[in-house]
């Protein structure tokens, strides 16, 4: 029998259905792997081995009774931004360090209903604000990958860095992530895995700790395009409890994986060719273009003229929404409290002690751009340019079916690098933010290794609610790339 944590979700579902192994055996193999590797990775804030074994036993019973759901027995990591009833949910913030939600997020409720097994709550940047998972109030996550010949600890990307590291190290078969400006796609690229941010509105936001509500979107992270498609199917669907949830039927995403790209028109946006981008990333992009052309796609040069304004728009819109959303952490109804001389003093001390530096910066920027006298100059101007960015995508999708770009401007960097000033860190998201602002679906697929042996991803962007084409193009890239490289630290490795 193969080493179980190495299997894809698709293969594990087959193995469980054939009774080659039980859900409890599969959960146990992952629990052992987490115990062994989590001290080095810090991918989980709260592992839940007992809950996992309980859920696995239920899955085995359902498999035996013939009532198993679509994910019965599949062990997953849950980003600690999804509320899980009775299980501590921290958003990687000290201010929620002891918060135990009395309710379940819709996405995790759907995964539970499908029979998935929850291994624990995965680490992230505090309130999902970051691109390196170094802003977590529970310590940085270490990327399981290393540069060739170096022991330097690298970041897994962020904000879904714990989810990415867990999946890459084979201590979880898949994971939930959330993506506000690239938080699924950039860590997927940094850790050599696959992740999709679906269309805004595809997965319910109910029960996900809010960062920037007009951008936040849940999505899956896994080790193949097919596995992402399987998970996305279970996570998607209309939810009346989320006012921006889309009333759309959920297509059979898995059926799109092997659809191929023959006859598809793939746009290559000129503006994603940036000054200072490494030759390796440019080279990988060219390879991706050839792979799709060889499989029958037509390559079309297109323009998204407002691309360069995506990041500055994002760094007004996201902090503005965050400053409103995070106003709820005041030490009154839930979360930590620090006593003060009076009510205002209590608020101020609570928030000063409970929030980390990056969260404070973003709340303050958001407060400023929404304040009297500056609203029009900053926030309204940003919203208008956001409209122009959407217009760019709409014009492009009149000519092409999907876009191909690099996912991130670099490979994973070392913990402690890029911390000179906040803006340097923000540049990580330059290729992922525009799709978030437009609300269109986008996927990162591992496409190769750089000269230092680190994974690099390519990004596929599609039309609103056309995840199927994104998945089809992702499947074609995966097929051609044949990415099978393994990280330095993984569950089956010698450590």
């Amino acid at each position: 029998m193969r080493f179980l944590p190495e299997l894809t979700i698709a293969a594990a579902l087959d193995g469980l259905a054939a009774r080659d192994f039980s859900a409890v055996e599969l959960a146990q193999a992952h629990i052992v792997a987490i115990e062994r590797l989590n001290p080095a990775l810090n991918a989980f804030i709260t592992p839940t081995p007992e809950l996992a074994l309980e859920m696995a036993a239920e899955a085995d019973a359902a498999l035996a009774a013939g009532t198993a759901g679509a994910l019965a027995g599949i062990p997953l990591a849950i980003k600690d931004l999804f509320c899980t009833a009775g299980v501590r949910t921290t958003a990687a913030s000290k201010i929620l360090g002891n918060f135990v939600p009395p309710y379940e997020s819709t996405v995790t409720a759907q995964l539970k209903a499908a029979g998935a097994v929850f291994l624990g709550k995965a680490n992230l940047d505090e309130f999902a604000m970051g691109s390196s998972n170094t802003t977590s109030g529970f310590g940085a996550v270490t990327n399981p990958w290393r540069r060739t010949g170096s022991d330097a600890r690298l970041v897994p990307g962020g904000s879904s860095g714990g989810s990415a590291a867990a999946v890459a190290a084979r201590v979880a078969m898949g994971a939930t992530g959330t993506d506000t400006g690239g938080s699924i796609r950039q860590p997927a690229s940094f850790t050599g895995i696959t992740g999709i941010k679906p269309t805004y509105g595809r997965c319910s936001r109910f029960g996900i700790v809010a960062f920037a509500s007009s951008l936040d979107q849940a999505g899956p992270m896994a080790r193949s395009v097919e596995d992402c498609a399987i998970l996305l199917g279970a996570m998607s669907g209309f939810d009346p409890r989320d006012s921006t949830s889309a009333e759309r039927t959920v297509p059979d995403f898995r059926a799109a994986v092997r659809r191929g790209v023959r006859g598809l028109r793939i746009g290559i946006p000129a503006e994603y060719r940036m000054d200072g981008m490494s030759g390796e990333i440019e080279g990988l992009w060219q390879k991706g273009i050839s792979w799709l052309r060889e499989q029958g796609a037509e390559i079309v040069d297109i323009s998204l003229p407002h691309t360069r304004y995506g990041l500055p728009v994002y760094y007004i819109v996201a902090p503005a929404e965050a400053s409103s959303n995070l106003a709820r952490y005041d030490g009154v109804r839930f979360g930590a409290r620090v006593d003060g001389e009076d009510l205002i003093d209590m608020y101020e001390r609570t928030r000063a002690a409970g929030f980390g530096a990056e969260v404070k910066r973003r709340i303050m920027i958001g407060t400023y751009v929404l304040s009297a006298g500056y609203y029009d100059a900053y926030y309204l101007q940003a919203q208008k340019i956001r409209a122009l960015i959407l217009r760019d995508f709409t014009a492009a999708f009149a000519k092409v079916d999907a876009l191909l770009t690099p996912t991130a401007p670099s490979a994973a960097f070392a913990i402690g690098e890029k911390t000179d000033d906040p803006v340097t860190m923000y540049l990580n998201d330059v290729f992922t933010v525009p799709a978030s602002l437009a609300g269109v679906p986008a996927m990162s697929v591992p496409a190769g290794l750089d000269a230092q042996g680190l994974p690099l991803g390519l990004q596929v962007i599609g039309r609103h609610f056309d995840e199927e084409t994104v998945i089809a193009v992702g499947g074609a890239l995966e097929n051609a790339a044949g990415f099978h490289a393994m990280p330095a630290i993984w569950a089956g490795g010698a450590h």
Partner: protein
Amino acid sequence: MSLDTATVRRIAKLARIRVEEPEIATLQTELNAILGYVEQLNEVDVTGVEPLSGGAQMAMRLREDQVTDGEIAEPILANAPDREGRFFAVPKVVE
């Protein structure tokens, strides 16, 4: 436009975040770096462009105005830092 230290203090006050005096200069530098970066948005001509507030490509959904949830005070109060009976407790506001 560049923030002075008085403005940094005012923003912190509005945001209800206590900032100690030695932190002000660092915050001022960091916030000004971010504001300097977003300054480039001023060069875009937005004449006649309607602002886009959200990612959803849909009209706001309406529902019947009726109670669908409630009477769950205990689960809600379970996470309260301080409570008195079925109420959240806060420091005295009115003398």
